[in-house]
């Protein structure tokens, strides 16, 4: 199979997706998605469990055949030149794809050899990657003895044996502690700075916010919004007031008062006596809280902040489809 020259012009997007779709039986995992990811950008796909993030990434990484639609990755057509796509990408899946019986070093040497490096070049590349990813001390231990964070780093290192044009990262920090998450974030930023285009998925708005220049929000296999983090927040509003009531029995009364004061769109949290509403300004929030207290409604806790993913969804879908609503039904 000939890889063929990439026909990528300097301004062409690294990833271009049109109408990509894939079903599993009756489940439409990805139901027609369009994306354009410019070169060198960190682009985040944000969505809840089952949104279709993994399915989308697996199709773009040639691991899964699409049912419909088309895509090019670094100028190579996904269907017509999958081998050329493979030469230009690397993928770190949602779950580590490493040989647990081998050591970290052996995993990297094996994959380097599969790429076609000679024995010596493979050893050197493995050593460089282990050093760069802070794994030199654990290099000769079996991967089954690695912590979650070490596995993640090794898995990402394994994707960088050959510097890819596009790196797919499926939930790169799920399950990591805050410090390990920070490390992975730093790593992703540096990779992007070195010119690698990164398409990552996440369930956390904060992560998308921290890393990505652009974010596409998907749910039920469809893209429901796309933009910069600022644009998405503007659509949602960042002055979100979260109130936890001391007594859940007061929930309806409090919700009514907040709605009257701050407008419609009061969301009931999936658990506990939590209410969230777009307050606009701290002053408005303060006034609303005073009103609740004056009415004798006890507050256990309150906070102002950016909307949670649930709330972004609520705002983006006009509330018809918010996970919080579904859970409350």
């Amino acid at each position: 199979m000939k890889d063929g020259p990439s026909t990528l012009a300097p301004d062409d997007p690294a990833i271009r997706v049109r109408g990509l779709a894939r079903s599993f039986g009756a489940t439409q995992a990805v139901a027609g998605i369009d994306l354009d990811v410019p070169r060198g950008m960190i682009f985040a796909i944000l969505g809840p469990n089952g949104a279709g993030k993994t399915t989308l990434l697996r199709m773009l990484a040639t691991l899964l055949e699409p049912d419909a639609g088309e895509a090019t990755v670094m100028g190579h057509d996904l269907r017509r030149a999958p081998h050329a796509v493979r030469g230009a990408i690397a993928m770190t899946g949602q779950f580590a794809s490493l040989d647990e019986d081998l050591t970290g070093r052996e995993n990297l040497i094996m994959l380097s050899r599969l790429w076609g490096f000679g024995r010596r070049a493979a050893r050197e590349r493995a050593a460089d990657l282990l050093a760069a990813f802070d794994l030199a001390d654990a290099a000769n231990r079996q991967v089954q003895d690695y912590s979650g964070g070490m596995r993640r780093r090794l898995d990402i290192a394994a994707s960088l044996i050959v510097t890819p044009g596009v790196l797919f990262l499926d939930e790169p920090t799920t399950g990591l502690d805050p410090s390990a998450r920070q490390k992975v974030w730093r790593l992703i930023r540096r990779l992007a700075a070195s010119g690698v285009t990164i398409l990552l998925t996440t369930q956390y708005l904060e992560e998308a916010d921290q890393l990505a220049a652009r974010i596409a929000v998907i749910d039920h296999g469809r893209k429901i919004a796309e933009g910069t983090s600022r644009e998405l927040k503007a659509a949602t509003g960042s002055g979100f007031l979260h109130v936890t009531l001391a007594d859940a029995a007061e929930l309806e009364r409090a919700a009514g008062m907040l709605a009257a004061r701050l407008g419609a769109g009061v969301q009931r949290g999936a658990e506990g006596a939590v209410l969230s509403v777009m307050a606009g300004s701290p002053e408005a929030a303060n006034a609303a809280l005073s009103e609740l207290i004056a009415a004798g409604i006890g507050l256990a806790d309150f906070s102002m902040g950016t909307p949670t993913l649930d709330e972004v969804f609520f705002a983006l879908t006009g509330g018809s489809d918010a996970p919080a609503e579904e859970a409350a039904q």
Partner: protein
Amino acid sequence: MTDIASLKRMERPAPPSGLSNALVFGWRAVLKFRHVPEQLFDLVMTPIMFTLLFTFVFGGALAGSPDDYLQFFLPGILVQTVVFNAVYSGMGLSTDFQKGLFDRFRTLPVWSLAPFAGLMVGDILRHLIAGMIILAIGLMLGYRPEAGILGVAGAFVLLLGIGFGVGWIFLVLGLLVRTPTTVMTLGFTFLFPVTFASNIMVDPATMPDWLRAFVEVNPVSLMTTAMRGLMAGTVTAAEIGRALIAPVALTVLLAPLTLILYRRK
């Protein structure tokens, strides 16, 4: 954390040959031996127990003396060893899929069959090592191959052919079945009757007619007969031909099926 910015960009090297890829997978199998020597234990423990038990417990009754029985039994237990071995390679494949390792392999621009060719390299190695261990134990217990080194070498070549052919059954199973333990259960459920209802342990002359009819056409019996012949120096071309029917047929039928299943997955 060491600066990942210090990591050099690396361009893709010239594409490797399919053979070199397959050898890398073979190297992986060797490494696994080193890190998980227990797997060798799994492979040889059952045949060693069988050899000891059958030789000393039943040997006298079945063949007059344990020594005579061992002479009869050892070539057959080698067949059983290799056939049981194949189950473990199916389990390994299923584990690799479960662990997502194949996702990694499949996003590399390598020959898509290299992982299977590599599994085969690893299997051949496993068959050889397990076969040697069983043979060595047989020799210690007093087994003597009449055909000498050449006969034994010939028998091992046939053994690898058998392992290769039977291996496809479990590769297909490994691709179809989601959990490694199910591969093992299914594998042994199928293999126990097939190996027991053969001429490995006893001469079928004493069996009821209906069973003997099966035992005589059982591919495991045909393989065992050829193995005995090779190691005793009495083998005929027809015996070798009959022993190879099943491995060749399995390869012809299941190799393409393996590919189809793999590409679909």
